[in-house]
């Protein structure tokens, strides 16, 4: 864990794995650290140990913005690191296979998906399997929202093994329909609204992902565990 300064009021917690970490496990380990830090920092803020306007998890980092005193916060982060490390070595975090095996959990949000995306054949080819196997893989994976970005309520879902990472489309589509379920890099994602997009489309859902009148407004916020079920 490394703390990077970001201007006068923010810090970036960098959870990038050491350079000698095997590539196959680096992404999983980084995602586990980011999730553990996010959970710890949200808890600390809730308890009043930490004052921050924004705590923003991302691929390998957690941004803390709106800090009244970043130097003091940096000291706190160093002290809290051992608790976070302990959390990442708990059985759930340490065994990515457990996630892949997909244990049921009442807290999981089930996303009903119609798997008819135009890029399904391309994904199948890239993975070296047939289309039903892609569907099976997606419905038997327990995903977790690593972070939101790109658009309000757009979840970056981790859970697929690193070797199934996919390239983005060479030419993004000018319009991807709302509810599109898509894959890119190591992530699955769901477009909350229609927008341009370069991810490979595998299906669609009617689930409303972002509703400003709901509390919380994002159905799939950071830390949420997610399953896809064939609609």
């Amino acid at each position, binding site marked *: 864990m490394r703390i990077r300064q*970001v201007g006068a*009021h*923010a810090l970036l917690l960098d959870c990038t794995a050491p350079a000698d970490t095997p590539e196959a496990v680096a992404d999983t380990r980084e995602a586990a650290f980011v999730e553990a830090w996010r959970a710890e920092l949200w808890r600390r803020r809730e308890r009043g140990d930490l004052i921050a306007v924004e705590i923003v998890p991302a691929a390998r980092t957690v941004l803390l*913005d*709106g800090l009244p005193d970043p130097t003091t916060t940096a000291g706190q982060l160093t002290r809290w690191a051992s608790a976070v490390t302990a959390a990442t070595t708990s059985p759930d975090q340490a065994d990515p296979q457990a996630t892949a095996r997909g244990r049921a959990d009442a807290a999981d949000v089930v996303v009903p998906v119609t798997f008819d995306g135009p890029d399904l054949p391309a994904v199948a080819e890239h993975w070296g399997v047939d289309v039903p196997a892609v569907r099976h893989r997606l419905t038997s994976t327990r995903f977790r929202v690593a972070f*939101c970005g*790109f*658009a309000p309520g757009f979840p970056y879902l981790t859970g697929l093994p690193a070797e199934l990472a996919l390239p983005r489309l060479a030419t993004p589509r000018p319009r991807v329909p709302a509810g599109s379920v898509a894959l890119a890099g190591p992530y699955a994602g769901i477009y909350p609204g229609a927008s341009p997009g370069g991810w490979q489309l595998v299906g669609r859902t009617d689930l409303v992902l972002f509703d400003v009148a709901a509390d919380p407004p994002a159905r799939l916020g950071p830390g949420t565990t997610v399953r896809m079920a064939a609609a």
Partner: protein
Amino acid sequence: MTHPATIEVLSAGALTTVQDLGRPGWAHLGVPRSGALDPGALRLANRLVGNPEHAAGLEITLTGCTVRLTRAATVAVTGAEVPVQAGARPGDTGRPLSVPAGTVLRIGPARRGVRSWLAVSGGIDVSPVLGSRASDTLSGLGPPPLRDGDRLPLGEPVGAPAPVDLTVCPTLPEELHLTLGPGPREDWFTPTAFDRLFGSAYTISPVSNRVGARLAGATLPRAVAGELPSEGIVLGAVQVPADGQPLIFLADHPTTGGYPVIGVVTDVTPLAQARPGTTVRFHGPQR
């Protein structure tokens, strides 16, 4: 039954949006902060008309805009150097103006600077979205940019106008000198990049908007090639995309970005008034 008081848009101009102090606190869900590009100027306009500082006003861009108020109100305009006309009466920026019902208010075009903020007593009372009435041009949250013929509700005035005749408006500088604080990815750039960033002049590119001020000038070479996985972005972050030309993020910035941030501009508010072609120079916090 009385009709609710409104502000009617006769001519929206290039870009007029409803803005307040934005919706911070939702970045973890991908929601930008948004809000007035110069919050201090909006706050001042609100104080002048007796509003709480967080009341919503209009952010008016360059070409100006024309509105009609259906009730008597106190109004104030801050920001760019613009002509203000209240009916047949010439007005002024930086001071409260008391206008009768039906007054046509014409603001702009800007003589110097880019953006003005119009506060009306009672505030623009559109429905808040996630605690803010700000129009976010990136995500589309909040009211859309104004169009000719729009009618926006006005709130009930809650305070008395400020007892001042005028305020001293800061003069708009010919050249911007921006203080740069540390960036999280300084180590992704070569020493040459910093020599160029601090040693040469950049100019504001015409494609700048509420999301960011794009700069043109010496390219900033990278020490680390390859992609940076998405990470959280702060206001004022100076991001360097693949073309090596820096971009300074403003209020409607995305919450995460995938290009390295070389530094963070301490105060972005002068950029709200920077026209394309304006010279920008960076210096470190110690100077």
